[in-house]
C-alpha cells in the first residue's frame, strides 16, 4: 500500500511543481505551489516524520502561501501575467537533473529497506530541541526576530 501511496504522492507533487513553474497566471502558480508542499508533507508522513510534515503544512500553507498571494495582490493585477520565459533555464535544469539522476543511480544504496524504528514522538523531538539543539534553536529565534523586523522596515512607507 505504501508503494501505491508513494506513486500517487510523487505524481501529485511533481505535477503541481511543474504547474507552479510553468503556469502563466501568478495566482494559479501560487496555488499549485501550495499543493506541491502538501505533497512534500505527505512524503514526510510516509517516511515517519509526522511532526515535520505538520510543520511543513502549517508554515507553507498557512503562512508562506498566504504571504505570496497577498504580495501578488499588492503588486497589482496587471502584473498578474508573466510574459518572459528564458529557455536557457530549461536547458540548465534538464542538465542538472540528468547529472543528479546519473549520480543517484551510480551510487551503492545505503540499505535497501528502511529499518523499523520506534515512532518519533513529539516529546522526543522537544527533548532534543531543548537539550542538544538548544543553541541552534536560539539562533533560529534570533534569525526569525531579525527577519520580522527587517521585513517590517522594508515594507514601511518610504515617505515617513
Amino acid at each position: 500500500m505504501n508503494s501505491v501511496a508513494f506513486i500517487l504522492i510523487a505524481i501529485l507533487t511533481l505535477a503541481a511543481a511543474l504547474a507552479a513553474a510553468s503556469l502563466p497566471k501568478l495566482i494559479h502558480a501560487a496555488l499549485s505551489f501550495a499543493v506541491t508542499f502538501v505533497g512534500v508533507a505527505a512524503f514526510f508522513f510516509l517516511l515517519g516524520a509526522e511532526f515535520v510534515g505538520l510543520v511543513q503544512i502549517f508554515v507553507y500553507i498557512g503562512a508562506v502561501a498566504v504571504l505570496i498571494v497577498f504580495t501578488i495582490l499588492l503588486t497589482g493585477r496587471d502584473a498578474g501575467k508573466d510574459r518572459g520565459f528564458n529557455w536557457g533555464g530549461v536547458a540548465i535544469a534538464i542538465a542538472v537533473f540528468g547529472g543528479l539522476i546519473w549520480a543517484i543511480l551510480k551510487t551503492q544504496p545505503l540499505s535497501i529497506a528502511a529499518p523499523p524504528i520506534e515512532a518519533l514522538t513529539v516529546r522526543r523531538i522537544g527533548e532534543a530541541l531543548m537539550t542538544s539543539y538548544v543553541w541552534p534553536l536560539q539562533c533560529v529565534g534570533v534569525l526569525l526576530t531579525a527577519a520580522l523586523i527587517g521585513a517590517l522596515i522594508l515594507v514601511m512607507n518610504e515617505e515617513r
Partner: protein
Amino acid sequence: MTPALHLFLIVSAALFCIGLLAALSRRHAIFILIGIEMMLAAANLNFIAFWRFGPQPQQPIGVMVAIFSIAIAAAEAAVGLALVLAVYRHYRTTNVDQLNQLKG
C-alpha cells in the same frame, strides 16, 4: 513496505530541478521565490529520507535539520516578499530583467 531510498532521491532531484527551472527561466520575482522554496523543500525531503534510511534512525538528526531549515525558509520567504514589495513600490515592476540600474 516503504519504497527504497533511490526513489525518494529521484523525486527530490526532480523537485529540485523544477525549482531550478522556475528560478532560472521565469522573469517575475515571485516565481523566482517559489522556485527557491521548492529547491529548499527538495533538500528537506533528502534530509528526511537519508535520516530514515541511514545508519542511525534512532537519533532525530535529519528531522532537526529539516525543522530548522523550514524555519529559515519561512524567514527567507518573508524577507524576500518584503523585498519584492519594496522594489515594486520603487520601480513599479516585478520583472527582474528590468531591474538593471547597476549594469555597467
